[in-house]
């Protein structure tokens, strides 16, 4: 299993003043009470990928704007951006540090003075010698814009200056890994048309649709025969072919619909991270087990590192069990945020989850001990 992201450290982002999560696994589950910071951790990893590509190709919008909007924020970067800063204290830069295998670190910042809303990296010490030759005095770099910035962004270099190669060589596999990070949340699952337009052609090109149909048939006990496009109201929509009829994906039960959309979104990905928020929504435990089984097997085959937030103890149990069977390493992280925004993280391996459950201690309720 290709394991790329080893740890994340977040400072001053949304509701998190400070949070450090170390020793990530192949599969990482975040649990904790409402407001503990589970989704914010996913958002921080997602925001990091904006250093490489500010635009989410799936949603067709800027990643930072999407983080603002998806939590009912009105407007985009220009009008509502302050909510990305802890307690809206825009004087302090948001800092997100990612650590990768082979001890490579990426230190990212959101700087309020930057009205363009770029994600900036500080320059790695290993590159200082190389950078000093042409870019003396600069301390920040935006890979997406390919430009440097001076301290406090008093001034920036021109764009597209040709420094990308240097950073791409330094960070190696981590670049592609970060660039392709995909965030699956309920907003995405409420838009089947996005999957139809952006993902489905890739699925059909390799006939990966057969895998989805097989999973749906076996896991949801539906006599599914295939997936097709169905003309409705002048457009073609994705539809599930049953033995006696064909049903638009939109008209399926939410559990099956979400399973199709999650599976389709994951299938074309490779060697990257997938962030999945509350995959248990609308899922019967049996359906959830099917969806997770599919997801874990694809993750193993396609070298995907998974980050899942959940409130479901069934999901914790199912994923831990599946990981043991499939040969993936799984860790569960219990997050607890104090009133001053510091997030305490407790790491549970499978044996800890199993032991606590057998003692009668629900791992989601660890705040009592």
């Amino acid at each position, binding site marked *: 299993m290709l394991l790329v992201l080893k740890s994340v450290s977040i400072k001053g982002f949304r509701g998190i003043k400070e949070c450090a999560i170390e020793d990530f696994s192949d599969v990482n589950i975040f649990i904790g009470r409402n407001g503990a910071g589970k989704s914010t951790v996913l958002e921080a990893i997602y925001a990091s990928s904006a250093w490489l590509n500010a635009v989410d190709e799936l949603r067709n919008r800027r990643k930072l704007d999407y983080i603002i909007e998806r939590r009912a924020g009105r407007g985009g970067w220009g009008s509502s951006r302050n909510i990305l800063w802890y307690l809206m204290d825009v004087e302090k830069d948001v800092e997100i540090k990612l650590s990768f295998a082979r001890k490579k670190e990426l230190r990212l910042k959101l700087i309020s003075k930057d009205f363009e809303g770029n994600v900036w990296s500080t320059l790695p010490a290993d590159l200082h010698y190389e950078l000093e030759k042409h870019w003396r005095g600069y301390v920040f770099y935006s890979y997406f814009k390919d430009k440097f910035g001076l301290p406090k962004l008093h001034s920036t270099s021109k764009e597209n200056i040709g420094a990308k190669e240097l950073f791409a060589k330094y960070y190696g596999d981590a670049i592609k890994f970060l660039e392709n990070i995909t965030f699956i949340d309920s907003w995405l699952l409420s838009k089947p048309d996005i999957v139809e337009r952006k993902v489905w052609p890739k699925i059909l090109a390799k006939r990966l649709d057969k895998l989805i149909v097989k999973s749906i048939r076996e896991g949801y006990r539906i006599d599914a025969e295939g997936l097709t496009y169905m003309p409705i109201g002048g457009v073609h929509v994705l539809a599930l072919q049953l033995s006696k009829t064909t049903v638009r994906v939109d008209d399926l039960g939410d559990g099956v619909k979400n399973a199709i959309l999650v599976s389709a979104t994951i299938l074309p990905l490779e060697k990257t991270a997938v962030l999945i928020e509350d995959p248990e929504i609308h899922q019967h435990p049996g359906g959830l087990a099917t969806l997770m089984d599919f997801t874990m097997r694809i993750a193993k085959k396609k070298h995907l590192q998974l980050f899942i937030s959940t409130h479901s103890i069934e999901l914790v149990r199912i994923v831990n069990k599946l990981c043991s069977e499939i040969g993936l390493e799984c860790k569960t992280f219990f997050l*607890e945020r104090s009133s001053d925004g510091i997030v305490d993280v407790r790491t549970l391996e499978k044996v800890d989850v199993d032991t*606590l459950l*057998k003692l*009668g201690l629900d791992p989601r309720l660890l705040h009592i001990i």
Partner: protein
Amino acid sequence: MPIVQLRPPEESFDEIIFGKLVKLDAIILCEGKTEVETVKQIIEKLSIEIPITIGLADCKGITRVPRETWAIAALVKVARKLKNIGVLVDAENQNYIDRAKSIIDSLRAKEFKVEDLKPVKNSQQVFETIICTDRKPITLTIAVSGITQYSFKKHTIENHTVKLMLLEGKIEKNTISKHEAAEEIVGREKTLEIIKQANRENIKKAYNHIIQILKQLTT
């Protein structure tokens, strides 16, 4: 709510979800359901005041051996507020200190930093130590059940019920030598009934190790 039974999970789940239970100060890991019920019964019968909140956990479902070590290890690793962990185990075929040491050795084998065991005042069957963690030390108190002077093949919590029956005059002393196991005399279901009907002083004498572990955890 000084005592909370953790298994089945429904026992504690409602207490936590509806906000009555916000913190466990200590957890006693019990060898099995008999120990859980015995501890509860003794507290009730002797009206022992418990000023903190203690969770009673039945380790029976944990199949890894030694199971109490796995439970201690998991708790030490994930707990933040827990100050004390109690363990109530059977001596089986060992003497008290060796049985307690076997738990410490297992923890050390798992690379936990554990101080040497110290016997607790007023009991030869209760021992205390400190488990050092990166955050804060956790006190581990081990109470070993069984009365090794008895000729039973294994020394278990039921030994104490036999002692209580002797003190209560319900059996003759020579009854012990006629049986290989205390369970043959007591019968699991009888323990609680015997405690319920017994004299308070006799209970204190028969179950001194349980009273001492409760004292250690609450003071």
